[in-house]
């Protein structure tokens, strides 16, 4: 082993053929090492470098721990020391490059040997870049294929999403047409009848009846106008302009409650109300309609509404339990349809909008009530924590 860097035998003239051959071999070694074909590093049990040979390992200082310059050996110290007890075993680190602020070093194969007869460990270093260009090209092609595949998958998903949106839009259109032709037909027909009755009253010079029918006509006209506004509101309810925000769900409910005319209904909140990254406006619209619906349809001077929230894993489960008149089981399905109301308050769009919002976000709603057994209604919605826009 050389005692310091680049130590090799002198090139003194030798006449003995065997010695000449030995000298030629050493010379060949020197030339190859100088051209970076290989490099040798000797280090002791403390892993301190005692010598080196070849331009490839010139970056490794003699007298310092080998791990100082060859950082990939950090953590492998025990492994290297153990080599001495396992003759013949070699520690191989293939294709390792050390990156510093000045750039990425060459990829090197490092092999550490420990010989029973030798005091020092030997590390043989050689370039690992013989096939680099081929490997880079291969890797580039693999990456290009992966990217193309991902793009196809992404486009397919986008297409599926657009198809689903189109189906929903078509469904909404059909529903809109059905409402427009069915639910608005009755008040429009009533308007026609009233006009006929006014004409008849005027022909008979019955001013009192004509005035009464005109008042009814105004009432019907207001009702049609109100229904059209509600229908417009319902049609535009969706996620079109929704954005994910960090929502304090407790504060949201408290704001809604404060903004509504509660009358004699006392609202109580229970459970755990977390902060949630979700679409704030649709959640607010859903809760507002549910709370408003409960308050509007309460039939007594004093009432109670309990709003509770629990974490149901993938979703928040929000329950609204009131002590109002309740909803008969035969109306449970129809209350979620537009213009279906069991009382005289409102247009009957509140729960329809709630249902529509929940369909849009992938949530659910359940209703539990049977006035024949007990007063009150419990509505439970599941609002998903993750919403795809």
């Amino acid at each position, binding site marked *: 082993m050389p005692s310091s860097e680049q130590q090799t035998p002198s090139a003194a003239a030798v006449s003995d053929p065997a010695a000449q051959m030995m000298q030629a071999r050493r010379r060949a070694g020197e030339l190859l090492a100088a051209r970076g074909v290989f490099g040798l590093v000797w280090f002791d049990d403390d892993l301190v470098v005692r010598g080196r040979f070849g331009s490839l390992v010139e970056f490794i200082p003699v007298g310092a721990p080998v791990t100082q310059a060859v950082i*990939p050996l950090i953590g492998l110290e025990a492994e290297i020391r153990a080599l001495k007890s396992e003759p013949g075993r070699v520690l191989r680190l*293939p294709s*390792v*490059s*050390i990156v510093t602020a000045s750039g990425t070093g060459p990829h090197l194969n490092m092999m550490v040997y420990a010989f029973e007869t030798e005091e020092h460990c030997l590390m043989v270093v050689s370039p690992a870049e013989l096939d680099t260009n081929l490997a880079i090209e291969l890797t580039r092609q693999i990456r290009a294929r*992966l990217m193309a595949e991902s793009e196809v998958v992404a486009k397919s998903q986008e297409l599926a999403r657009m198809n689903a949106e189109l189906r929903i839009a078509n469904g909404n259109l059909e529903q809109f047409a059905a409402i427009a032709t069915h639910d608005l037909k009755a008040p429009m027909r009533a308007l026609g009848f009233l006009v006929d009755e006014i004409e008849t009253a005027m022909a008979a010079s019955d001013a009192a009846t004509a005035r009464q029918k005109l008042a009814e006509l105004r009432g019907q006209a207001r009702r049609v106008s109100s229904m059209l506004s509600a229908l417009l509101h319902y049609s535009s309810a969706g996620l079109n302009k929704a954005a994910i925000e960090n929502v304090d769900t407790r504060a949201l409910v408290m704001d809604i409650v404060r903004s509504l005319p509660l009358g004699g209904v006392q609202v109580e909140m229970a459970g755990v109300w977390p902060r949630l990254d979700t679409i704030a406006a649709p959640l607010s619209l859903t809760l507002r309609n549910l709370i408003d619906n409960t308050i509007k349809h309460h039939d007594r001077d004093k009432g109670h509404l309990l709003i509770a929230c629990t974490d149901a894993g993938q979703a928040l489960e929000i329950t609204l339990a009131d002590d109002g008149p309740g909803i008969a089981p035969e109306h449970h399905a129809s209350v979620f349809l537009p213009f279906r109301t069991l009382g005289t308050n409102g247009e009957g769009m509140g729960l329809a909008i709630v249902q529509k919002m929940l369909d849009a976000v992938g949530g659910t709603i359940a209703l539990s009530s049977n006035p024949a057994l007990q007063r009150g209604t419990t509505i439970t919605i599941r609002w998903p924590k*993750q919403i795809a826009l």
Partner: protein
Amino acid sequence: MTARKIMLLGEIGVGKSSIARQLVFGHFETRYKPTLGVDVYSYEIEPGLSGGVEPGAKFVIWDTDGNFGDSILSHIYIKEAAAALVVGDLTRQTTLHTMLDLGRGFMNAMPGRYCGFLVNKSDLVDAAAELPPELIQASVPMLRTSAKTGENVKNAFLRAADAIRRRGL
């Protein structure tokens, strides 16, 4: 102080090298150059940082070739690693599933070591982009990162450094 070894694992092209370079050199390279074998960086926690990290703690970061797949888990490269940060590409769902396999593989191969998930390229995708549910449920610390903007890159390594210190690795 002995340097600790942190592995960067993940499929090809997810941004492992960009994350390492953003952390160590503070810049992002737009030109893609695949890693062959392994590139090794050294990183030292700068003084003055809070949050349980050890100022002056040294790390060697092993940025591995994505072509290794799960064979990396039995490779000499991973020996004595104190932690692994498994990287996925938010724009390529398949890489997110691979993250899960690599993360589980690392935790099986190196019990007790820290493992974190980095969902990279967050600058390219809406923050609400969907993640596979099994990734969310994997109970592995996860951060959305952007090697381009630097978002959460240092944070991810500081978390790993803190876990290494706490676990005495």
